[in-house]
């Protein structure tokens, strides 16, 4: 398949995300097998040569990718992604939405106002930012959940370094009963079709409100993403 002249067009929009293929876990943190040939075949079938080259460069034993090496890459990628969040002042923008939301929840009464859960938190930039800046005031539990144990381990280490009171654990934020307000950043685009509908249905059952941030699809999005990758990433 010929490569596009423009570098920002070289990743087909139909291709699954590489992080989804490499970071497929169940809700208990058990990883699905990293079968190298299967992953390469999936990427090749979608014409995603960029991701295919990344996978070809990852250490492997036989047909299994080295999980530690994969996790190290995912952690590095998430730290670089945090730069993007910082560039867009994302933490402050989340706080700007949550503060009036929590005020409204308190006016209604009940326990809803006391918990903010970051769904698919990765290294938990948002809850750590909110904790560091005390953006939501006292009495609000800041939590983060992710299926990837390595990312949660990294998030806990970062929170401990700066003595931040954030509740971080492997698991599904929406399976823990009343979840207060759910937030997420860059998670929604990992769902589609029935999975997305099921995600929202569960949220309606267990959260008082949910706030999701993700990239707005537009003709300029691939170029913008490429430019910021070139400008701000290694």
């Amino acid at each position, binding site marked *: 398949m010929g490569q596009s002249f423009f570098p920002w067009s070289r990743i087909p929009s139909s291709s699954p995300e590489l992080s989804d293929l490499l970071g497929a876990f169940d809700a208990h943190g058990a990883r699905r097998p990293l079968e190298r040939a299967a992953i390469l075949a999936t990427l090749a079938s979608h014409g995603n040569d960029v991701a295919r080259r990344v996978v070809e460069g990852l250490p492997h034993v036989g047909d299994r990718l080295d999980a530690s090496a994969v996790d190290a890459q995912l952690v590095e990628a998430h*730290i670089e992604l945090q730069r993007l969040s910082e560039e867009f002042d994302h933490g402050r923008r989340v706080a700007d939405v949550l503060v009036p939301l929590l005020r409204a929840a308190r006016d209604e009464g009940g326990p809803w106002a006391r918990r903010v859960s970051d769904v698919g938190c990765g*290294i938990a930039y948002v809850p750590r*930012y909110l904790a*560091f800046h005390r953006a939501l005031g006292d009495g609000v539990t800041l939590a983060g959940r992710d299926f990837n144990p390595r990312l949660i381990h990294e998030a806990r280490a970062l929170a401990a370094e700066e003595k931040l009171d954030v509740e971080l654990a492997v698991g599904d934020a929406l399976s823990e009963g009343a979840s207060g307000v759910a937030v997420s950043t860059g998670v929604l685009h990992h769902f589609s079709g029935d999975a997305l509908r099921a995600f929202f249905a569960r949220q309606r059952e267990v959260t008082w409100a949910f706030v999701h941030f993700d990239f707005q699809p537009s003709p300029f999005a691939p170029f913008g993403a490429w430019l910021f990758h070139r400008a701000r*990433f290694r």
Partner: protein
Amino acid sequence: MAALSALLVLVVFDGAFSGFRAVAGTSGRIDKRVDYARAMGAGAVMGACIAAMVGAGAIILAAGTPSTPAFWQDANLVAERMVCFFAPMAVLVSALLAVRAVRSVDVRSVASTLMFGAGDAPSARDFVAGTVWAVLGGADHGGVAVLCAAGAAAMLAVTPCVR
């Protein structure tokens, strides 16, 4: 001497920002001021040390040339050309950094795009181009060219060394 002094300032400035570049994106902490300050300090010190070594090398070479005034004239001319090339970049980067102090995501994004997006300018490529241009236009004395090349190579090593 004015050009050589200005070049020294630029070298320290570049060293500091090379240090910043070395650590940017490597820490997941919320408050990275200490990380950045340490890295920029290390980069600035490395830049100053490189400038000192190049200066010492120039003094030694000047002492060994038949015409010391001609050597320093050469060195000053090359320094002037380097300042002409790199000072505008430093001013632009400083201005864009000042713009990033505006608390608007749109303004910050545009500043970032202008500063970093234009082929990741200023880059190693620009650094080499500026040095070659300065040397070709001014260095009759081979020793000046060698010192420039050595200084430029050392400056390019600041980022990986701080990292």
